[in-house]
């Protein structure tokens, strides 16, 4: 059941909602590596990223009903499940303790002697590192650390509207850097 395009997206979702094992294997074979890459942009530890990936697929299997097709594509949802799962791990105490040994989020890019960790998304990292400081901080805090825009506004002491404007400007710039 590995042929790409065996299921239409709608059919795949429908079968996942019915707990169809073959559809789940198909989903895994088609998206596991991509989601693994997404997790590795946040947790640069292959073994731990694998554990997170497993949690992510268990969550997809058990909670596919939380996916709302009116909000976007299945992959968009899975991407968020994966990103959030990785961020949750970065918030655990054990991870925080080992953090000095494991370059984690984009703030390490600002340390001059710390090279970009290998195995992570070079485009996104490189692109983020060339953003203006006020933009970089917002991408880092929101995308890599999972803070809400409201939390960021409080933490940085700037209005929510400013956070939104700057984050959007940063993302616009990233899009240009990545797609050109």
């Amino acid at each position, binding site marked *: 059941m590995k042929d790409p395009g065996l299921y239409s997206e709608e059919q795949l979702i429908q079968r996942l909602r019915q707990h169809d094992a073959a559809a789940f294997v198909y989903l895994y074979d088609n998206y596991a590596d*991509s989601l693994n890459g997404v997790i590795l942009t946040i947790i640069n530890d292959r073994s731990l990223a694998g554990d997170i*990936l497993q949690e992510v697929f268990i969550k997809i299997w058990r909670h596919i009903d939380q996916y709302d097709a009116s909000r976007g594509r299945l*992959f968009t949802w899975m991407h968020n499940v994966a990103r959030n799962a990785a961020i949750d791990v970065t918030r655990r105490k054990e991870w925080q303790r080992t953090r000095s040994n494991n370059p984690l989020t984009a703030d390490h890019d600002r340390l001059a002697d710390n090279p970009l960790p290998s195995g992570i998304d070079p485009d996104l990292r490189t692109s983020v590192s060339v953003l203006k400081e006020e933009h970089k901080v917002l991408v880092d805090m929101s995308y890599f650390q999972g803070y809400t825009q409201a939390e960021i506004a409080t933490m940085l002491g700037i209005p929510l509207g400013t956070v939104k404007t700057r984050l*959007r*400007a940063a993302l616009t710039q990233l899009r240009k850097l990545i797609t050109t």
Partner: protein
Amino acid sequence: MNIQEYIQGGAIESYVLGLADEEDIAELQRLRIEHPEIAAAVEAAENRLLERARAQAVPAPTRIRTNLLQMIKTEPAEPASPPSIHRLRALNRYKALAAASVLLLVTSLVYNYYLHRNYIQAVAEYTLISNPSVLKVPLLGVAGKENAGATLYWDATDKFVYLDAVRLPKAPAGKQYQLWALVDGKPVDAGLLENISGIRRLKSVQKAQAFAITLEKTGGSPTPTLSEMVVLGNVRS
């Protein structure tokens, strides 16, 4: 508002990356219904997200696949048949949809054909599937026809059934698909499927415990040819 500015301004990326808050999400959901260009831009951003993730994929450890296969074997799975019905959520967007429909009629000539056709289709489907009184009944391929599938929507208010049959193979010449409502064990004709894509409305069905589609001669049959059954789905309330 300036649509191009919105599209270029990063709000869509923020949404797709999961960084938007509820207010941003509500705004985008409203705008994508009102403006087909925005709907197309969201779709493009989602496609970019997937393409980028594919380009930067890192092979997952093989143990994960093994563990997961073990897990789904032991996890109590629902039977494949009868399928459950997913009562669809109310999204309270009828006003926006009505406005969008009017807007569409007025501006339809302006939009290019492809975009326009998809948008009409999307609005029609959205209206249908977001209606809380509409039941969704997945119709699954029967043995030997596992790749076939269709989705039936049954409006509880006017009893009309709608069918999205994109995953039925093209009917051979001289043949036509026919939908049947199974009422207290008896098949009742629920309409013939024309060879068109997208969701189409068929007959009104007052009562049914299941729906099935068979391949019949063009023009349909008074009773179904059971050996030619393609998909089947039970109604559970």
